[in-house]
């Protein structure tokens, strides 16, 4: 029954991981930007939720849409004001730019919030659900369900709305999209904004589960990277599969080798996958 518990833990974690990675995948797929800031945007969302909780008493689950909208505005402004200036440049230039922006954001957060770990403690605790001999913590369950809802929502936006279609069209053929009257720089800004929205929402959910500190942003960036490669770039179902796969693998890895190895396992997996199946589990062209 221990294995069942570990599996449940892994799936709960994995749902959150998909939400962490989906914005990173979208920005990479559509804008061809490897957004080094992604981890810091998650942490920023987590801090916003933490302060909303401790200072204003707003439940982090309720705060998710607020964090999302705030981060969307920040992301849109960054892309429209800064990153759009180098969009024609090789990927190394945009990588360097987001690396620099990340240094600014990360250090600003260390300066403003200190590097101490903090965590939202919901009192009284939400408790557990018993399934046979296994337990499902309610806070993690709600976080996972909300995370999957957000990922599903993004999928629906891309598939069924006018702006969503334009985002996919820009990803496929920027010039043909311009011929349809699409304002491409604006679509870039909306896409980066959506990536930041998903990061902020994920951060808000995470503040309930993980201790947060500006120093943990790199770990989340790493996970987002692994999940994208695992699931295949440019596919939302792929990100969901990749996220849950990583969650489950990390859970079993911690069980067998100890929790210290969970990141090592993730990156060993990444290397193995890059060697044997570089397109990922579900990778193909087209943002499905």
């Amino acid at each position, binding site marked *: 029954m221990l294995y069942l518990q570990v599996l449940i833990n892994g799936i709960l974690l994995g749902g959150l991981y998909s939400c962490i990675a989906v914005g990173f995948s979208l920005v990479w797929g559509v804008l061809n930007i490897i957004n080094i800031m992604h981890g810091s945007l998650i942490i920023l969302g987590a801090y916003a939720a933490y302060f909303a909780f401790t200072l204003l008493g707003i439940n982090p689950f309720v705060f998710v849409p607020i964090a999302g909208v705030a981060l969307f505005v920040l992301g849109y402004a960054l892309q429209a004001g800064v990153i759009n200036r180098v969009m024609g440049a090789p990927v190394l230039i945009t990588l360097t730019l987001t690396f620099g922006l990340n240094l600014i954001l990360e250090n600003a957060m260390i300066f403003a919030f200190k590097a101490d770990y903090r965590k939202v403690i919901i009192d009284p605790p939400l408790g557990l659900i018993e399934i046979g001999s296994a337990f499902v913590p309610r806070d993690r369950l709600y976080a996972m369900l909300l995370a999957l809802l957000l990922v599903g929502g993004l999928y629906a936006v891309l598939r069924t709305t*006018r702006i969503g*279609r*334009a985002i*996919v*069209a820009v990803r*496929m*053929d920027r*010039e*043909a*999209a*311009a*011929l*349809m*009257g*699409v*304002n491409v720089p604006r679509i870039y800004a909306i896409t980066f904004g959506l990536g930041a929205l998903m990061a902020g929402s994920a951060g808000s959910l995470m503040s309930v589960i993980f201790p947060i500190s500006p120093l943990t942003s790199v770990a989340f960036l790493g996970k987002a990277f692994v999940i994208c490669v695992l699931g295949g770039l440019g596919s939302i179902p792929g990100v969901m599969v990749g996220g849950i796969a990583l969650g489950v693998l990390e859970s079993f890895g911690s069980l067998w080798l100890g929790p210290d190895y969970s990141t090592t396992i993730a990156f060993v997996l990444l290397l193995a996958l890059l060697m044997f199946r570089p397109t990922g589990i579900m990778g193909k*062209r*087209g*943002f*499905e």
Partner: protein
Amino acid sequence: MSERLLELTGVSGGYGDIQVLWGVDLAVNAGDMVCLIGSNGAGKSTLLRCISGLGVWSKGRIAFAGRDMSGRPAADIVAAGIVHVPEGRRLFRGMSVRDNLLMGAYARRDGAAAIRRDLEVVYGIFPRLAERTGQDASTLSGGEQQMCAIGRGIMAAPRLLMIDELSLGLAPRLVEELGEALIKINRTGVSILLVEQDVITALELASYGFVLDRGRIAIAGAARELMVNPLVTDAYLGATALAVS
């Protein structure tokens, strides 16, 4: 005399240091189907890109329906009613035929009902697209892809439809079918500027033609006259013309 819809006066243009077009004068009257012919590399596609505001520098005046459109970004050109069906179709892969058609209507502001109505118009002109509405556009045959690209253009509710290389890579029977569709579209009041390497097809469809040679308009005239003009027949038709006559 019908109204001038598109008028180019002394348009030069190119890419970076390379000048492709040298003082082109060209006009399309409202309701007409006009063709632009010329050999590979004459600058036909570059001229369309100049009009569409697509990654080309240009000088000179481009007027549309009396308004100066020179140097305007692509989105403004589409909003004004000039729609460019690019060479090679350039459909959005991974998107269904229907979603490709709806992308054509992206810039429209006249509401969902009008867009749905035009979707039915496109399916009426090209019934094969209606059969394949949910299919990934990249899996269509070449002819169907060209239908989808033209349909996507119509979805923008254009006043002027510019089609680059209608016939490229297609079987003669399909080209004929597409030509008939263009005539139908033209009859609904949409003006057409057809760019072609296949001179016979172009001159049969259009009422007026321009011949572009090394970035300059070499000859212009009624299609019927161009068809028998020795300068055109010698340079572009060759033995084919003799076979036809």
